[in-house]
């Protein structure tokens, strides 16, 4: 049996089991509505102006946060990875900041920045910074010294060594970091929206339908959308890695 057929069967069987569990009352249908209901609601979301506003807000914030994290993380990583003194000096601060989950900062940032989009963008950027930063630092140490020596033996200038040797060498690791950051940023964005009353965003959409209205069909429809989006983003990153970074198909830590 071809693999694609098995995947389809697995999906269909899962949906049927869920449907049966929900319809038979094994799980209460108001808590966990059957997929037939959820999927209809999911399709209906695309004609729901409120939902579309929420999605645009979340996705735009996501793009901005990921872009900022990359723009800050890569140069900072090059600096910290390349200059030993800076690395030593910053390491204690970094080690205490890194394990701090952004979500713990939600109350603080709301107090300081209010409940607008800047709050969730700031938090998501903070969270997304670390994977990019650490993968860049890690990648710098993995650059093959023989490549650098080869370039030096041909008297290649410092700048060209950076653009021609270092950056291509670290690119696969950085991309892995960005991919990881993408999902972290999404989690933080949605959590922040979820916890900040009166904002717009996918998290607030789910919160409103869930906590005030008790409409789990809408909650699950929103969840399916977020999962699908995260899935497609992941596929996109893997494809980009295959397409542009063929020389290093599997790169990266984390």
């Amino acid at each position, binding site marked *: 049996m071809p693999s694609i057929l*098995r*995947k389809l*069967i*697995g*999906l269909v*069987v*899962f949906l049927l089991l869920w449907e049966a569990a929900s319809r038979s009352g094994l*799980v209460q249908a*108001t*808590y*966990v509505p059957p997929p037939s209901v959820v999927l209809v609601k999911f399709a209906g979301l695309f004609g729901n102006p409120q939902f579309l506003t929420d999605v645009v807000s979340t996705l735009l914030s996501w793009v901005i946060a990921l872009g900022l994290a990359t723009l800050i993380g890569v140069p900072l990583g090059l600096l910290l990875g390349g200059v030993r003194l800076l690395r*030593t*000096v*910053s390491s*204690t*601060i970094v*080690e*205490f*900041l*890194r*394990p*701090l*989950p*952004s*979500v*713990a*900062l*939600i*109350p*603080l940032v*709301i*107090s*300081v920045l209010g409940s607008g989009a800047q709050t969730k963008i700031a938090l998501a950027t903070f969270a997304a910074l670390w994977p990019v930063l650490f993968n860049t630092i890690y990648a710098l140490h993995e650059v093959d010294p023989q490549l650098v020596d080869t370039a030096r033996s041909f008297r290649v200038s410092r700048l060209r060594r950076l653009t021609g040797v270092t950056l291509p060498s670290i690119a696969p690791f950085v991309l892995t970091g960005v991919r990881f950051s993408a*999902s972290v940023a*999404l*989690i933080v964005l*949605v*959590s922040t929206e*979820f*916890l900040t009353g009166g904002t717009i965003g*996918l*998290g607030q959409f*789910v*919160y409103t*339908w*869930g*906590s005030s209205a*008790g409409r*789990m069909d809408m*909650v699950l429809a929103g*969840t399916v959308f*977020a*999962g*699908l*989006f*995260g*899935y497609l*983003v*992941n596929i996109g990153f893997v494809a980009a890695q295959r397409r542009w970074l063929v020389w290093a198909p599997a790169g990266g830590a*984390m």
Partner: protein
Amino acid sequence: MKIFAQRWLVFLGCLVVWQFAAASGANPYFPPPLRILRAAGDLWFSGPAWHLWLTSSVGDDILPSLARLLIGWAVAAVIGVLAGIALGRSAVATDYVAPLLSFARAVPPPLLVPVFLVVFGIGPQMEVATIVLGVVWPILLNTIDGARSVDAVKVETARAFRITRSRWILGVVLPSALPKVFAGLRVSLALSLILMVVSELVGSTSGIGFQLVNAQQATFDYPAMWAWIALISVLGYVLNGLFLAVERRVLGWHHGYTGQAGR
């Protein structure tokens, strides 16, 4: 020793600068470190002597939060590793669940909190369920990956010596997968801390996350809020450190082996 001094001097220097800047600026959101320290002392270390000077908050908020985090993580670890080993050794079985796994991994776990809230109500079950369902995926996917890629020569060696099935799983597949499993466990531990805080911010009446949001919204006690933030950071630091210590022991062979192979 010099490096050690360098690192901590800079850290202390930053704190001192913060202290003076905050004391002169008087911004209520950024209290000076010493005030935060005093708030932490009041919060946790001002209890009676027969309680080792610990306050009731330690037993009512910190320990229960930690317990939920660790239980959720441990349950996810058991499920993830068992299912991962089983799936990893069967390409056919993996095919059936692959699309579901890719999807499940991509769902931001906080979105499911409303569902868990109605199913389990406010309380520890809801928190543990959120953590388990949020952190099981990195463990599961990494274990599948590790179990699938057992070296071909080791497979043949085990077959040539007629290794029994249980010893094959425990003695060859599991150790082969272990470096990947640990990578997944580490990511999941960090994620567990996040979800512990999120679930307590939303649906709890005690715990670290609840006290954090309480200090901000109900009592406007910003030094206390900072103390809770610092506690979460220290928790993350300590948990990660303990995990790395265990990993170094358990995976000592792996570092030696790859170090030698990568000469």
